[in-house]
C-alpha cells in the first residue's frame, strides 16, 4: 500500500489524513507538539456561528482515532523530500508522498512597540482574549471590569514597517466576533473598533458585522491607531485619525486589543530551500497554480493543505484537506 506522510496535526493535517485514508492510503500524521488540533486548540468560539472550537477539534480527533491513521506526537519534522521525512531525533520515515500542513506563525505584537504590548498593562492580543474566554475570566490587570475597550485591526498585517504586506483575512472577522463577545460580557462598556478596511469575506460574516453595529452598538472608526500611551490613572490613551471625518481623534480606554495577523510559518524558507519548493513574496508556500493545482507544490509528490499556503478560515482549511486527497490520488494513481 502507498504510504503518505502528513506533516502537522492541525485541522488541515487531520482532515487531509482522514480523506487520504478513505481513499485507501496508508497514512501517518507527524505532529511536533504533544497533541492534535493546532492553533484551534487555543480558540474559544469560532466565527461566525460562535461554535465552540473544541466541537471541531474533538470531532476530528475522534475520527482520526477511529480511522486507523497512524499518529506520531512530539515528532518534529526537520527536513523532507517526496520519499523521506526526517525527524528532529534523526529518524527517517519512508513514504511515497508528503502533504505539508504545518500551518502559520502568529505575529508577535511586541514588534509593534508603539502599541505597548508587553510594556503597558491591559494591552492584549486577540490570542490573549481567546485564552481569557477559555478560562472564563476576562478582566483588567487589577481585576476590574473594562468600561471602554478598543480593538485595533491589521496588527502585523498590511504593514511594510514589519515586512508583512499581505492581509491576514481572518482578523477582521475575529475582531468583530470578539467585540460582540466583550459587549455580551460587559454590556455597559463602549467598544470601538479601529479598522483600515473591514473585510468580511465569508457567508454570515457581513451579517455578523451589521449585527455588531446595529444590535450591539459597537463603534467602528476608520483609522489606524498611531500610538498608545499610558495615562496618569493607568488607562491607555490612543491617537488615530477618524479618516471619514478627516479629523484627528484621541480617546482613552481601559483595554486595548491588538488583532494579530497570520504570518508565514517560520520553517517555510528552510523547507523550500531543502526540497526545491517555492515561497510567495509573503513567505507563505506558493502552490503550483492558483486555480487548478492550488494544493500541489511545484515538486511532484509534495502537496499542501491549510494555512501553510495562505491565511484561511477553518472551512477553507478543511476543504483543502479533501482536495489534497484527490490530488495525491491523481499523482500516486
Amino acid at each position, binding site marked *: 500500500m502507498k504510504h503518505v506522510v502528513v506533516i502537522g496535526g492541525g485541522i488541515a493535517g487531520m482532515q487531509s489524513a482522514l480523506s487520504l485514508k478513505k481513499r485507501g492510503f496508508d497514512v501517518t500524521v507527524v505532529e511536533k507538539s504533544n497533541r492534535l488540533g493546532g492553533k484551534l486548540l487555543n480558540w474559544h468560539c469560532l466565527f461566525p456561528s460562535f461554535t465552540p472550537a473544541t466541537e471541531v477539534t474533538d470531532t476530528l480527533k475522534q475520527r482520526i482515532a477511529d480511522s486507523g491513521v497512524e499518529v506520531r506526537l512530539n515528532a518534529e519534522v526537520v527536513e523532507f523530500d517526496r520519499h523521506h521525512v526526517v525527524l528532529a531525533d534523526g529518524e527517517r520515515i519512508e513514504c511515497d508522498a508528503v502533504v505539508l500542513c504545518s500551518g502559520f506563525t502568529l505575529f508577535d505584537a511586541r514588534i509593534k512597540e508603539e502599541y505597548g504590548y508587553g510594556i503597558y498593562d491591559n494591552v492584549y492580543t486577540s490570542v490573549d482574549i481567546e485564552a481569557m474566554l477559555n478560562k472564563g475570566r476576562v478582566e483588567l490587570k487589577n481585576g476590574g471590569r473594562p468600561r471602554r475597550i478598543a480593538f485595533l485591526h491589521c496588527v502585523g498585517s498590511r504593514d511594510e514597517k514589519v515586512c508583512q504586506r499581505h492581509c491576514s483575512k481572518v482578523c477582521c472577522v475575529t475582531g468583530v466576533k470578539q467585540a460582540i463577545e466583550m459587549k455580551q460580557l460587559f454590556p455597559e462598556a463602549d467598544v470601538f473598533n479601529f479598522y483600515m478596511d*473591514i473585510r468580511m469575506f465569508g457567508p454570515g460574516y457581513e451579517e455578523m458585522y*451589521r449585527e455588531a*453595529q*446595529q*444590535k450591539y*452598538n*459597537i*463603534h467602528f472608526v*476608520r483609522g489606524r491607531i498611531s500610538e498608545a500611551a499610558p495615562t496618569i490613572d493607568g488607562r491607555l490613551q490612543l491617537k488615530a485619525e*477618524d479618516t*471619514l*471625518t*478627516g*479629523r*484627528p*481623534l*484621541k*480617546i*482613552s480606554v481601559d483595554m486595548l486589543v491588538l488583532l494579530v495577523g497570520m504570518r508565514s510559518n517560520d520553517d517555510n524558507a528552510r523547507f523550500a530551500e531543502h526540497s526545491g519548493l517555492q515561497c510567495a513574496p509573503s513567505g507563505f508556500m506558493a502552490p503550483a497554480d492558483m486555480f487548478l493545482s492550488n494544493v500541489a507544490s511545484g515538486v511532484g509528490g509534495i502537496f499542501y493543505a491549510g494555512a501553510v499556503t495562505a491565511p484561511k478560515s477553518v472551512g477553507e482549511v478543511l476543504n483543502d484537506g479533501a482536495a489534497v486527497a484527490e490530488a495525491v490520488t491523481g499523482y500516486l494513481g
Partner: protein
Amino acid sequence: MAAIDWGFSINRPRTIDIDNNNLRKSDEILREMPELQCCIGCGACTASCTAGNLTEFNFRKVHTLVRRGEYQGAYEEMNKCMLCGKCRLLCPRGINTRGVVMLIKRKLGDF
C-alpha cells in the same frame, strides 16, 4: 489705546476628543435609531445629494461627527437638507437617512 493686531491667533484643536465630548446626545440618537450605527461610510448619500453638490453640506460627514460627539454646527448643516430623499433610495445599509436628518435636528437644536 487701540489693541495692536500682531497677526497671531490660537487655533482651536481640531482633535476629536472622545473623553471630553459629551456622548449623551449621540447615545440618545443611536438608541432612537440604531440603524444609523450601520453606516459603512460609502458616501452614496453624499454623492447623490443636490444640496451637497452645490454647498459644503456632507450628510455622511455630519452624522459621523455627531456619532463622535461633535455637535457644533450639525443643526445648521442639516438645515441645508431639502428632504428630497434621494439618499434614502441609495443607502446600501437601508438607513432612513431623512429620518436621521430630522432626528439630529430635533436633538441638536441647541448646539
